[in-house]
């Protein structure tokens, strides 16, 4: 991720200030997509409950990917769901970010040896922040959202490169690891 703030980038007074302003606005109004998958989805809902209250940071769930900035992948992604997940990501408007929540979304977690589980959601979509845990506490998700906020605020708009989108489509194309075996 070369977009993270580094000391070497050239600073421009006018445009640089404008960048900072836009980034600040963006980082203060991250709207996640309502997309719950598994156990972590319940903890994701709990992050917006009165106790943790992520609304304090200007984050509200949007029901359609067109209006959302952040996708929180909260649970195990299997090969059947992977195509749908990818389509949702493609439907989101730029700029967009992905948080991988929990062990299953990170690398398959306890289910990674299974025949139908995708070993990590970063094989399908580019991930910005990873949260370990099974499931992570709501506070851990909030910490990840704040980490993402820092990342957005540090980004420089003029040097925006196309994001590296995984091209590992094997997961999406092949239904089974050896799906060509003869039917018994």
């Amino acid at each position: 991720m070369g977009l993270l703030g580094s000391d070497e980038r050239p600073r421009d007074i006018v445009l640089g200030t404008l960048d900072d302003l836009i980034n600040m606005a963006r980082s203060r109004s991250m709207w996640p997509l309502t997309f719950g998958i598994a156990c972590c989805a319940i903890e994701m809902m709990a992050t917006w409950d009165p106790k943790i209250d992520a609304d304090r940071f200007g984050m509200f769930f949007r029901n359609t990917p067109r209006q959302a900035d952040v996708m929180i992948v909260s649970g195990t992604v299997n090969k059947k769901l992977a195509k749908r997940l990818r389509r949702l990501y493609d439907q989101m408007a730029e700029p967009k970010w992905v948080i991988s929540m929990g062990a299953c979304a990170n690398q398959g977690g306890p289910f990674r040896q299974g025949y139908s589980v995708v070993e990590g959601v970063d094989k399908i979509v580019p991930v910005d922040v990873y949260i370990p845990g099974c499931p992570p506490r709501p506070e851990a998700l909030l910490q990840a959202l704040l980490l993402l906020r820092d990342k957005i605020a540090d980004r420089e708009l003029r040097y925006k490169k196309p994001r590296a989108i995984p091209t590992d489509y094997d997961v999406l194309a092949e239904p089974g690891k050896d799906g060509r075996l003869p039917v018994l």
Partner: protein
Amino acid sequence: MEARMKQERLYDEDVYTVHPEDYRALCERLAGEGYDFPRAISGIDMGYGLRVTLQLTRMKDLAKVTVRTDVPYDNPVVPSVTDLWPGVEWYEREAYDMLGLRFEGHPDLRRILLEDEWALHPLLKRYDTGGYPVPGWEPKPWPDPEPWAPPPPPEPEEAGEADEGGEAS
């Protein structure tokens, strides 16, 4: 039919093991006896063949019964009981999906959990957890005596004598 059926008592359930040809007839009999609540149908890979386990409860007096039948790998066909208990519809589809058991007469027998394009039945013991074939896996020979054969009738007098003799010596 009675000859090809083994009945035993396991914990609090009656367990019937039948020949696949008699499976449907026994299920019809049980439906007539008032077993109305289907709990589950489970497919089990026994190593020599596939086993179908149907579990039923009678709501009236809470009697529980289990019906088992074993079919060979090369012809895993079992008659469907969806018309007797509609609640087993998804369980039969699941058993087909996971083990390749084909239920004859099922209204809509297709994969339920995996996608239609999948070619493997992952719960078979010939595949490992990741869905790859286990090297060197061979089916076991069919058990002898056959699982549905009733045990030979005990001969109480001789058996009793033999036990006593064993204890004395």
